Each structure stands twice: as structure tokens, then as C-alpha cells.
């Protein structure tokens, strides 16, 4: 069987779900169920008695087979991210942490320097560190080097729906990585998720595309199918692309006739 291995955890689903932007928790939980996702990311927020329904901990735990992956969204520095991770692990009991440090609230691009520092510390503290990064092949290797469990390069900016704008960089990261590469952010459609899997990603993380759809559970199911199809195609071995035209006089004439 083709499992996604993260630390000592094995997952049969390669679709990871984000929980933001849903109209309400019920729809979100339906979408999680429909997606077959086994890893779900949640943010740490202040308790608010006016909005008790914001609390996803109980409802998510009630779903079978779900492992929580808290994220550090809201942190703008390594210190804040490390602190959030420690609090999150304490609350959830899960060793997973998605290190998400985006100081600019417009484009939400991840800070590579703070991210690297946070990951360095958290890996030493025994977390299963999953950093959210720009599609930077060198940063990906440096994070692998300090002990991250995976790298999560963005396909395009969070919520932008621009798909795999970083495809060329993703290809390099995937080729060179010894740890699973999980495309996160920017996937708009199931076909893009399938493409990411065909490229060799270990998994994809989808949030906005499902949450803002008219029918999130149905869209979640569609993404699940696409991720499955893409992975199967990757394992089966895609036909190589060839993009070069035929020369007018043969380049291999100098070799003479084959003996």
C-alpha cells in the first residue's frame, strides 16, 4: 500500500485539509468527512464566550481517524511561532506543527528566516515540523537538514487560486528532497491537485478552494478523487514529454553505421 509517512505516522489519505473560511463549523466538518482527510490543520485563537462554536477541538476529535496539525498562523516571529507550537502541542497532544509565519497580512507570504529559526528549535524539541514556505529549493534543503518532517511549498499565494504558479521550482524541490513535499496554498481546482500529485508531491493541503465553494463537501470529495488519481498516475509512471524538433541533418551521422 502507498502510505504517506510523516514521522512515525502513516496516512492513507494524501489530502490535508485547512479549516479556515468556512461559513460554519458544520459545513467544515462535513467537508472534512467528505474529503477522507486524516490530517487537519487548525489555528490557535483566543477563547471567546460570544463565539463558542469557533472551538473545533471537540467536533474534530469526534471524527474518526483525524490527527490534528495545529498551525502557527498569527505568529510573525520565530519566538511567537515556537511559543504557539508549545501551547498547541500541550492542548492537542499532537506532535505535528505547521510552522506558518506570514508577517504581511496582505499577501501572506511566509518569512523564510523566522521560519527556519522556528523549525530549527522545534525539530530539536521533538515536534514533527511541517514548514510552510515559498517554493525555494535551497530553503527546502536547509529545512530538511535541520530535521523537518516535510516541506510545504506554496503553489501560489494563500487564497489567490493561482494554482501551481511555482511549478518549476516545485519540480526541483521534489526531485531533490528526501522528505515528503506537500504543496500548500493556491490550489483552486481538483485538476491542479491532481497535477501536483503527478509531479511527485507527497500530499497537498487545500483550504480556500473547498471552503469558498458553493458546496464544500462535494468539492472536498472532488479533491479527494483528484489527489488519488494524481498519485496513482505518478506511481504508474507517466509518459515522458518531449519538446524538441527534428534537426535537418542528423547530429549522430559522425558515429557511422551501427556495427
Amino acid at each position, binding site marked *: 500500500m502507498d502510505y504517506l509517512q510523516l514521522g512515525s505516522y502513516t496516512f492513507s489519505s494524501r489530502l490535508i485539509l*485547512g*479549516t*479556515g*473560511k*468556512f461559513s460554519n*463549523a458544520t459545513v*467544515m466538518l462535513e467537508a472534512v468527512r467528505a474529503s477522507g482527510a486524516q490530517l487537519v*490543520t*487548525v*489555528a*490557535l*485563537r*483566543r*477563547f*471567546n*464566550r460570544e463565539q*463558542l462554536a*469557533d*472551538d*473545533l*477541538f*471537540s467536533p*474534530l476529535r469526534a471524527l474518526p481517524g483525524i490527527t*490534528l496539525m*495545529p*498551525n502557527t*498562523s498569527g505568529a510573525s516571529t520565530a519566538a511567537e511561532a515556537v*511559543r504557539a507550537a*508549545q*501551547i*498547541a502541542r*500541550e*492542548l*492537542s497532544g499532537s506532535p505535528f506543527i505547521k510552522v*506558518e509565519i506570514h508577517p504581511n497580512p496582505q499577501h501572506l507570504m511566509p518569512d523564510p528566516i523566522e521560519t527556519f529559526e522556528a523549525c530549527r528549535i522545534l525539530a530539536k524539541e521533538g515536534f514533527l515540523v511541517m514548514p510552510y514556505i515559498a517554493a525555494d529549493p535551497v530553503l527546502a534543503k536547509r529545512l530538511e537538514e535541520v530535521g523537518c518532517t516535510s516541506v510545504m511549498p506554496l503553489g501560489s499565494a*494563500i487564497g489567490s487560486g493561482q494554482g501551481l504558479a511555482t511549478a518549476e521550482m516545485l519540480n526541483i524541490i521534489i526531485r531533490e528532497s528526501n522528505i515528503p513535499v506537500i504543496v*500548500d*496554498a493556491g490550489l483552486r481546482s481538483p485538476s491542479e491537485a491532481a497535477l501536483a500529485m503527478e509531479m511527485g508531491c507527497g500530499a497537498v*493541503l487545500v*483550504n*480556500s478552494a473547498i471552503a469558498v465553494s458553493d458546496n464544500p463537501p462535494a468539492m472536498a470529495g472532488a479533491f479527494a478523487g483528484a489527489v488519488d488519481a494524481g498519485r496513482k498516475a505518478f506511481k504508474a509512471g507517466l509518459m515522458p514529454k518531449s519538446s524538441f524538433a527534428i534537426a535537418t541533418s542528423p547530429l549522430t551521422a559522425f558515429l557511422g553505421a551501427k556495427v
Partner: protein
Amino acid sequence: MITLELNGKQQIVPPGSAVTDLLSIIGSVDNNVAVVINDRIIRPDKRSTHQLQEGDRVEILIFAGGG
């Protein structure tokens, strides 16, 4: 009464209140929250005995939606 900073806002509680008392006051009925006082995490097993002090900075945190 003693004054705390709770989630960035002022909160008053009776002196000698433990963390569990504060949680009741604010309406957190289950234990799905993280409690951080002056940057130190207070685990569930310590909440009934940990007494709040004047000026404590308290953060009560939950898991909410977010990518």
C-alpha cells in the same frame, strides 16, 4: 477583587480564585482550552490549584478554523 489581563482585556475575579474558577466565570465549560499565565502553560491537572494573582496576564486559547 483582583484584576487580571485576560486575552488582552481587563477581567476581575475574586481573590483566591483558581484557574478553574476563572474558566467557569468566562463560560469555558469543557477543557478544550489552553491556559497560559505570564507565558507559562498551566496544565489541566494544575488548574484547580493554581491561584491567580493581581496583574497576571492570562491567555485562554482554543483551536479554531485556519489554514
